[in-house]
C-alpha cells in the first residue's frame, strides 16, 4: 500500500492550482440556465480549452493532454476547490465523449471532438421520453429509413433533456426497427437542434429557470454519418455512457469535497448551531472523504487493469444522497436565511435544488437499489 503522491503529480496539481487561482472568475457566473449565463459559461470553457484544461484526459490531437484518471481526479479536486464554474459542456465531454472514443469513426472524431471541447458546440442529451423515464427501454421515438436520402427520419419526443434549452446538438436513442421492443432495435444518433422539424420547448425547473427541455421531432432528417456505432446497437453504445455517468467521470469527488469543506467553514462561523446539524455536517464531510477514497481506489484498480463494474450503481446511490445531505445541513445552519435567493449564502439554496435532482435522474435511486440487489447481490428479480 502506498498513498504518497508521485512528484510529477504534485507538480501537475501545483500547475493547475496556480492557473485556476489566476483565471477562475472572482464573481460567480450568472446561472447556466439563462441565456447570458450560458454564453458566459461557453466563454469560460473556451478559456479552459486554450489553456489545455478543458479535457485533460483526452488525446492531445483533440485538445487534451492524455492525462490518466489520477491526474483527472487531481484536476477535479483543484477545480472545485478553486470555485470553478459548472461545466456547460458536461453532457458532451462526460456522457457523449466516452461513447465516441469507443465506437466513433475517425471522421466523426475529427468533426465533433474539438468543437465539443471548446464548447463551440454544446450537447444536450436525449434519453428520457414522457413514458420512458425510469423505464428507459420503453423508448418510442422512431427513426425511419430514408434510403434515397441516405439517412433517417425522426418522429417523436424526448424530455428532461438537460441543457436542451440552449444547446446546439443532441445525442440520443431512437427506435430504428419498428418491430423491435425494449433494448433491441435502438440506434444512437447525433443531430443539430436547429435542424428542420426540431422543436425545442424549454422546461422551467424548481428555480424557475429552463434547466432542461422537451424536444419534438417532426420528420427530422439525420444523415448516416451522424449515426454513432452500429444501427440497432444503440443500447449497448449508450450503456457505456450511462455507466460512466453513474461511475467515475460525471460525479467527481472534488465537487463534494469542496462543498463539504465549505460546509465545515459555515459550521465554524455559525455560533449556537444546533448539536444535531453540526453532527450532520461532520457526517457529510466524512462521507465526502469516503467517496474520494472509494473513487481513488476504483481508479487505481482501473489503472491496474482490473475490470470496473458494480461500483457504478453503488456510487450513484452514495453521491446523490451525500449531495442532498451536504446542502440540507447548510440550509439548516442558515436557519431563517435558508430560503433567501440573494446574498453571499444563496449559493447553498441553488446547490440544494440541484442536489434534489440527483436521486431522480440517471436512473432513480429506487432503480439503482434494484440493480445493486439483483446484479451485485444476486437476489431474484421481482
Amino acid at each position, binding site marked *: 500500500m502506498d498513498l504518497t503522491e508521485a512528484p510529477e503529480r504534485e507538480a501537475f496539481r501545483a500547475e493547475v492550482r496556480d492557473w485556476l487561482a489566476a483565471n477562475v472568475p472572482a464573481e460567480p457566473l450568472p446561472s447556466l440556465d439563462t441565456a447570458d449565463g450560458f454564453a458566459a459559461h461557453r466563454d469560460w470553457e473556451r478559456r479552459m480549452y486554450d489553456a489545455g484544461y478543458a479535457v485533460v484526459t483526452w488525446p492531445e490531437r483533440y485538445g487534451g493532454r492524455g492525462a490518466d484518471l489520477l491526474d483527472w481526479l487531481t484536476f477535479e479536486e483543484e477545480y472545485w476547490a478553486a470555485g470553478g464554474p459548472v461545466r456547460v459542456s458536461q453532457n458532451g465531454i462526460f456522457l457523449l465523449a466516452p461513447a465516441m472514443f469507443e465506437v466513433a469513426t475517425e471522421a466523426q472524431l475529427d468533426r465533433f471532438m474539438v468543437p465539443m471541447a471548446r464548447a463551440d458546440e454544446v450537447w444536450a442529451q436525449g434519453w428520457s421520453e414522457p413514458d420512458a423515464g425510469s423505464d428507459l427501454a420503453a423508448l418510442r421515438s422512431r427513426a425511419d429509413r430514408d434510403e434515397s436520402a441516405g439517412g433517417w427520419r425522426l418522429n417523436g419526443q424526448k424530455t428532461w433533456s438537460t441543457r436542451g434549452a440552449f444547446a446546439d446538438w443532441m445525442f440520443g436513442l431512437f427506435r430504428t426497427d419498428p418491430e423491435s421492443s425494449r433494448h433491441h432495435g435502438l440506434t444512437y444518433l447525433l443531430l443539430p437542434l436547429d435542424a428542420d422539424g426540431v422543436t425545442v420547448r424549454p422546461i*422551467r425547473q424548481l428555480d424557475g429557470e429552463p434547466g432542461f427541455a422537451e424536444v419534438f421531432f417532426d420528420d427530422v432528417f439525420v444523415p448516416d454519418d451522424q449515426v454513432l456505432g452500429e444501427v440497432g446497437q444503440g443500447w449497448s453504445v449508450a450503456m457505456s455512457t450511462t455507466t460512466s455517468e453513474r461511475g467515475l467521470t460525471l460525479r467527481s469527488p472534488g465537487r463534494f469535497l469542496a462543498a463539504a469543506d465549505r460546509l465545515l467553514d459555515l459550521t465554524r462561523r455559525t455560533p449556537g448551531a*444546533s448539536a444535531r446539524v453540526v453532527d450532520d455536517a461532520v457526517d457529510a464531510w466524512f462521507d465526502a472523504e469516503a467517496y474520494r477514497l472509494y473513487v481513488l481506489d476504483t481508479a487505481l484498480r482501473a489503472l491496474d487493469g482490473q475490470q470496473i463494474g458494480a461500483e457504478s450503481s453503488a456510487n450513484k446511490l452514495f453521491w446523490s444522497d451525500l449531495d442532498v445531505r451536504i446542502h440540507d445541513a447548510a440550509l*439548516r445552519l442558515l436557519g431563517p436565511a435558508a430560503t433567501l435567493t440573494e446574498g453571499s449564502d444563496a449559493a447553498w439554496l441553488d446547490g440544494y435544488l440541484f442536489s434534489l435532482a440527483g436521486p431522480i435522474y440517471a436512473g432513480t435511486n429506487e432503480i439503482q437499489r434494484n440493480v445493486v440487489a439483483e446484479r451485485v447481490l444476486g437476489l431474484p428479480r421481482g
Partner: protein
Amino acid sequence: MTTMRLQPDEDALAFSVAVRDLLSQACDAPALRAAWDGRDGRIPGLWKRLAEMGVTGLVVPEKYDGAGLDLTGMVPVFAEAGRAALPEPLVETATAAALLTQAGGPTADEWLPRIAAGDAVVALGDGSPALVTGGQWADLFLIGAGSGVRVLTRDDANVEPAPSIDPGVGLARVTATDGAGRVIDGADGAAAFDWACVAVAAELVGLAQAMLDRSVAYAKVREQFGKPIGSFQAVKHQLADVFVATSFAVPVVHRAAWSVARAAPTRSRDASHAKHAAGRAAAQAARTALQVHGGIGYTYENDLHMWLKRTWSLTSQWGSTDWHKDRAARLLLTDEER
C-alpha cells in the same frame, strides 16, 4: 363520564371545513400560480373575503367584533391554510391579535377591530433589523425588544423586501427607525412566540397532508414498467412512512395548542415539540413527494413546487426544526419532572 377531548371543538372543525371550501376555489392552483407570478405574492381580494367570512377576527375578542377563539380552535383553520399553501399573513396577524388581546390597552383598542374587519395586516419580529414573514404586507409591526414588545407603524420602520424562493410569505427585513414606536405595557412576547410556533406547526401538518395526498394520487396513475408506480413496495413504504409521521404529529400540535391556550407550565416545551414534529413530518413529506413525482415534480410547471417551497419557508422560520429540538432538550434535561 368523560368530557376530555383532544380534537378541536365541533364548531371549530365545522368552521375549518368552510374555510377549506373557500380556499379550494379562491386559492386553487391557478390562483396560487398567478399570485406567485404577481406583484406582491398575494391573491387579490382574498384577505377581504377571509375577513368577511370571519377568519381574520377569529381570535379577536367579541367586544372588538371578533369570535374570541383560543388557539385550540384555530389549529384546524391554520391546517387548512397550510393545505392550500395560502399566501396570506394569517398566522402573523392572528398571533398579533392574540398578543394585543393579552396586553390590552390603547393599541388593542385601535388595531383589534381593524384586524377583525380585514383592514389591517400585522407582522411580528424579534430585534432590529429582523427578518419578518408577512413584513412586505404589514401595516403594523410588533417587534420583540429585550423583555418588551415595541409597536411600529409602517412609518416607524424601514421595510426592505427580502427575495425568497417562496414569494408567498412576504418576507422582509424590517429596521426600526431610531427611537420610533413605543413599548406596549405588559405584552408577553414569549407567549406570543409560542403561539405562533404552534400555529405554524398546524400549517406544516396541513402542508404535509397536502403533499402526501398529491403523491398518492400521482403514484396511482403514473405508470412505469407496465404498472402504476404506487404498486412498487419502494414507493408504498416511503408513502406509508410519511402517513405515520404526519398522523403522529397531529395530536402533538393539538396538545401544544391546549398548553399555550391555558398557559401551562410546559407551554414552551410543548410548542417546540409541535414545531419539531410537524416540521419533521412536512420535510419528510416534501422529500418523498419529490422522489415519487420524479422529474415532473422538479418542474416549475407542476404545482408541487409551491408546497415544497412553503415547507422550506416554514421549517426555517419561527425557530428552525433543529432550534426547537435544542430548546426542548434544554427544558427537558434541566427540569427533573415531566
